[in-house]
């Protein structure tokens, strides 16, 4: 090693420590930034010459690396659109020009158009929950837009009815069955359920159960709004009439366990009747469920762990609207960090691909939570002291080199 190389080495040392200090400075300044990933400095030796293994003009080079995969502290918030990822994966966001990026900064809030935008101005991407298949890459996603204040109604398509029909009920004569829809019609038991038509109007369906013979019943469904003073005859006949047969051994339903009901001005409602029993106790309905919802304004959203975004309507009902997928790449550490806590896909990282949250390798999405910065202030302060001391040591080397050069210069 030559004396002049001392300068070079110490300058390299000082420069490397400056890089380390810059990482510390960046970390400390972002110690409260949501979704911030700590930058760490990596040092490596740098040889300027190599002479047969004996002597080398050694130096150091430093580079800052963002620890993308490290998870930050979870912070609890009170906004349902504040999202944190518990586990691996990134939110897919786009800027105003449509370029997609990955981020873990999930402090989203609706903008004037209802799009969910985070503090850095990136829009959250997802796909409609009615989509036939889940997109596999970010190009198939759209910005999630919540139509606050818009009226939404969903027609009923599925439902179930669990009830017990008393086996002791008297038989109803064939001519008097509700299906005849005459003023003399009578029945054994009646219940009613609320379904929704295409426009989100609630439609009350009157469901009559009439015993026709031992272990055989007839179920007739009418539109309650066509009833005469709440009873027979209805101005229009039964929507559905179905025969039900029950087992004589255990009272379970043996035939007719699924009914198809065309809701007036609505869709076809498939009613699951597998829970019906015919036992020797009184009539009781234990679990009537019908999907769909009444027309009402979207008032807020709820986001489930698996990324399903539901609209919560003013009347308390919820409508599944979007699915928020998570994206990731083969090598997350090779993502390019950009401002706004976003990461861009690079050649080294591999292309982004999507997956459902809370499944496979993807983490769960937690609503009302944010992922804090991964920076620990105490560590940064100690790193700073170390870097500072190293810098001082390098400057001492420089001084010594300078003195050596001076001695050399004075030899003449």
């Amino acid at each position, binding site marked *: 090693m030559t004396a002049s190389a001392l300068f070079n080495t110490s300058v390299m040392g000082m420069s490397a420590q400056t890089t380390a200090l810059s990482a510390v400075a960046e970390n400390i300044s972002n*110690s409260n930034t949501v979704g911030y990933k700590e930058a760490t400095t990596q040092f490596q030796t740098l040889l300027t010459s190599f002479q047969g293994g004996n002597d080398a003009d050694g130096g150091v080079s430093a580079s800052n690396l963002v620890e993308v995969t490290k*998870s930050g*502290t*979870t*912070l*609890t918030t009170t906004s*349902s659109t504040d999202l944190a990822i*518990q586990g691996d994966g990134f939110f897919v966001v786009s800027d105003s020009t449509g370029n997609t990026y990955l981020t873990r900064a999930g402090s989203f809030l609706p903008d004037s158009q209802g799009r969910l935008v985070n503090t850095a101005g990136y829009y959250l991407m997802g796909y409609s929950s009615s989509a036939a298949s889940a997109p596999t890459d970010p190009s198939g996603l759209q910005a999630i837009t919540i139509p606050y204040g818009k009226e939404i109604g969903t027609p009923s398509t599925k439902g179930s009815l669990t009830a017990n029909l008393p086996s002791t009920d008297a038989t109803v004569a064939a001519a008097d069955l509700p299906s005849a829809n005459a003023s003399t019609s*009578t*029945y*054994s*038991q*009646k*219940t*009613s*359920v*609320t379904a929704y038509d295409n426009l989100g109007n*609630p439609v*009350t369906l*009157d469901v009559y159960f009439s015993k026709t013979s031992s272990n055989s019943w007839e179920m007739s469904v009418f539109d*309650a709004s066509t*009833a005469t003073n*709440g*009873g027979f005859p209805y101005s229009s006949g039964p929507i559905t009439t179905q025969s039900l047969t029950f087992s004589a051994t255990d009272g379970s339903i043996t035939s007719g366990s699924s009914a198809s009901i065309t809701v007036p001005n609505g869709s076809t409602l498939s009613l699951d009747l597998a829970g019906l029993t015919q036992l020797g106790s*009184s*009539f*009781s*309905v*234990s*679990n*009537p*469920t019908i999907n769909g919802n009444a027309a009402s304004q979207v*008032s*807020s959203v*709820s986001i489930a762990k698996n990324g399903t975004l*539901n609209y*919560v*309507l*003013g*009347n*308390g*009902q*919820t409508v599944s609207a979007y699915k928020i997928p998570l994206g990731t790449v083969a090598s997350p550490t090779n993502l390019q960090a950009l401002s706004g806590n976003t990461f861009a896909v690079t050649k080294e990282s591999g292309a982004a691909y999507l997956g459902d949250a809370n499944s496979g390798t993807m983490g769960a999405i937690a*609503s*009302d939570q944010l992922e*804090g910065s991964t*920076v*620990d*202030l*105490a*560590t940064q*302060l*100690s790193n*700073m*002291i170390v870097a*500072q001391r190293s810098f001082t040591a390098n400057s001492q080397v420089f001084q010594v080199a300078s003195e050596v050069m001076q001695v050399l210069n004075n030899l003449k």
Partner: protein
Amino acid sequence: MSLTNAGAIANQSLGAIAAQINVVSRNIAGVNVSGYATKTALVSTTSNGSTQIDGVARATNAALFQNSLQASSTKAAAAALSSGLDQIDQALGLSSGTATNTSTNRSPAALISALESALQSYSASPSDTTVAQTVLSSAKAVAQALNTANTTVQQLRTQADSQIASSVANINSILSQFQQVNSEIVAGTQTGRDVSSALDQRDALLKSLSSEIGVTTVTRANNDMVIYADGGATLFETTPRAVTFQATGAYTASTTGNAVYVDGVPVTGASASMAIQSGKLQGLTQLRDVIAPQYQNQLDETARGLIAAFAENDQSGLGAAAPGLFTYSGATSVPGANVVPGLAGQIIVNPNADPSQGGSLDRLRDGGISDPTNSAYIYNTTGAAGFTDRINQLVSSFSTSQSFDPSAGLGSSLSLTDYATSSLGWFEAQRQQATEAESYQSTLLSQTTDALSNATGVNLDEQMSKMLDLENSYQASAKLVAAIDAMYKALFQAT
């Protein structure tokens, strides 16, 4: 683990403790509020080791709550019935005195027995007009008592009818309030809001609903509740179902009250296939449709028995028997052994025997009250002042068995005196039963309410000790913040 994380944990712990103190203070404030259920803050550990509040849980005991609803329904039914019967009892002075004391006991049984003894005195001195006058006034008192009883019973039915109407209106208004609270709870549960206060409110609404009509409930996803009447008819499912009732303005013995419909299904009355089992509505319809009409039938039969007992026979044996001392407006013949609706309200003392209405007292002794112009109905053909045959015949008719309509529920062959006494006995038994049922159900209700309150109510001692715990935790967390601060200071000084 890092110092920053430690700081964050201490920080969040302070917030979580503050939220818990908030819940404790709500509990302490609710200690004397009836129906307030103890709230507990749900605390859990987050991934970084700190605590967070997941929500507020509310102490519930579904079985006890359902029991208390049932007890309140059964009690309301018993109370409605018992207060109605008490009303008849007081209006007619049925139980307020012994059977012989006719000045306070205005029951038909007591007055009929007074009439019998007046006739017995008359039989001893058939020529004494003062005694005859006593017989007449006793007979008038009997007719009047039956008239009053008839009016009272029908007034009670009218009143029960209007109470049913107001109960139905109340049910409808509770159901519409229920819809609001229920959708608030569903929305809150969906979005993870604290709905515990709304749940308290919903339980209170259910409680007031249960005193009107017996209910069973089913809870669906998201705390959505469905209410069925205890006969199975749907009261509330997403939307309230219509509870309808057509009130009847005035009742007579032959009026049948309208049924109450829930969701188009008749739940009261004879045609009800899904009849309600309890609640004020059930008690009122029981009173209006079963007990009061049956008592009315008995009164009508008593009146008919009187008319039959005092009927005069054609002495020539040609014509039919005709109503004698007791008759009714528009009477042409003595009614057969079937209930004549409203006869108790129409029975009068024949004017032909009443001197104040142009009649003659002597006809009590001689006969011919039915038709003074028709000599065939005169028993004392000679006009002898000592004639006692007819009087003795009348006296014995009180204890002679005659036919009664068994549909009134007192048998088909009894003497007049026995019938009137049995009727009184039947009524008093019903009243006693209703009063006993009410007091039993009241005790049961207060016991289930106590049990529910013990299970879900606020225990002040527990809350106070929890408060002390929280205070200590808060101090510890604050201390931790100070310690972390001191550590940072040390670090800053080192640089």
